[in-house]
């Protein structure tokens, strides 16, 4: 074991299919189809993927979709705004759970 989050894992990702080839094949085909031009363009999907990558805090995905978004013609200011959108949703998601806290606290309090 070389440690957590080895950058080579991203390059070798396809080998995850080795012990479950049918599932791996289905995953990678489905993934490829998801990212193709559809009702949303592949450029738009690239930005969404970059935002989700930050929300799920996946360094592999962050590297992959930063490179992809640059290739698709976005600049670093646009990418930074995407990260803020992801952060705002994550922060907002935490904060809105405060309503749950309030409901419990208000129910128990005087």
């Amino acid at each position, binding site marked *: 074991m070389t440690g957590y989050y080895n950058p080579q894992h991203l390059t070798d990702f396809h080998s995850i299919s080795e012990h479950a080839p049918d599932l791996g094949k289905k995953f990678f085909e489905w993934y490829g189809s998801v990212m193709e*031009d559809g009702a949303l*363009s*592949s*450029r738009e999907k690239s930005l969404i993927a970059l935002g989700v990558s930050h929300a799920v805090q996946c360094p592999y995905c962050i590297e992959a979709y930063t*490179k*992809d978004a*640059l*290739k*698709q*013609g976005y*600049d*670093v*200011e*646009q990418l930074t705004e995407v990260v803020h959108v992801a952060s705002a949703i994550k922060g907002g998601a935490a904060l809105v759970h405060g309503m749950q806290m309030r409901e419990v606290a208000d129910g128990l309090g005087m």
Partner: protein
Amino acid sequence: MTESTNKLAVLPTLNRKDSPLANPANQLSMLDALPMNGSGDFNGALAAAKLPPLRATGIDTLQLNLGRVCNQTCAHCHVDAGPDRKENMSREVAEACMRVLAETEIPTVDITGGAPEMCPEFRYIVEESRRLGRHVMDRCNLTILLAKRYSDLPKFLAEHQVEVVCSLPHYRALGTDRQRGDGVFEASIEALQRLNAIGYGREGSGLRLVIVTNPVGAFLPSGQASMEADWKRELKARHKIEFSELYSITNMPISRYLEWLESSGNLVSYMQTLVDAFNPEAAAGVMCRNTLSVGWDGRLFDCDFNQMLDLELGADQPRRIQDFDMAALATREIVTGRHCFGCTAGSGSSCGGATV
């Protein structure tokens, strides 16, 4: 010059700095020495894809490089052009080019540089090519149109129905100015608006206005059609600018872009990216197969990149435009090198954008 063009930031060229990379032989040896996984040999990659060595299929485009003089010093320039360069095509060479046009039926004249408009023979070449009924393209950096001395150019180009192919890497200032120099974005937008004002890029005008985008960094371009839709929407919304088509072009690892790749630590990985992305379909459609490139001094090359690398045509081919021989040139074998992976990577790249 107007206020806008005076604000452009320019840097010394490799030539002015006496950089070792100003010498094409040093560029070629640097590329050849890079350690590559897999075949870094271009002809080997063709053979592995069961393709024959590249050979011309005719000459549809006479690409004239009028010189190295430019009012900008873009970071990715494969010509090492700039204000400190002096090379310009002479009338004698320009006349020889026009004689070739008159004696053949080559349909397209593609004028490039430097800023080709700064060559004293630019207008002669445009007028004569159009008089001969040929389609003319001007590869324009946009900001030159704001210089006082050239401010009548949009009208001149429109009167001669010249297709304007201009450079704008992004519809926002950040990437544009990083690649092309501070102040270039603002001046480019003003130039595009002037071109629009006389009909360029407007539907039904017959005046084609093409925008070329090169990646601002060490990566390949992707999704030309999708980017075009975005560029059209954003330029219209932000600056009321319209244009005909977007070409996305791969940066070639030569000259100033090569220097940047090396100094930023991206050279090996970028070259490997080009090699790994070799696309046989793109290889079959490379532009050198139907283009002849002419240097400011009249020397002949397979493409503008070979011209900058001093890779002259193969054995038994004419060396100068004055010795033009269609029978020999139309089926010539193309001279290749590692830089050719730049035109065959991914969706392919040519002066007309992606090729597949």
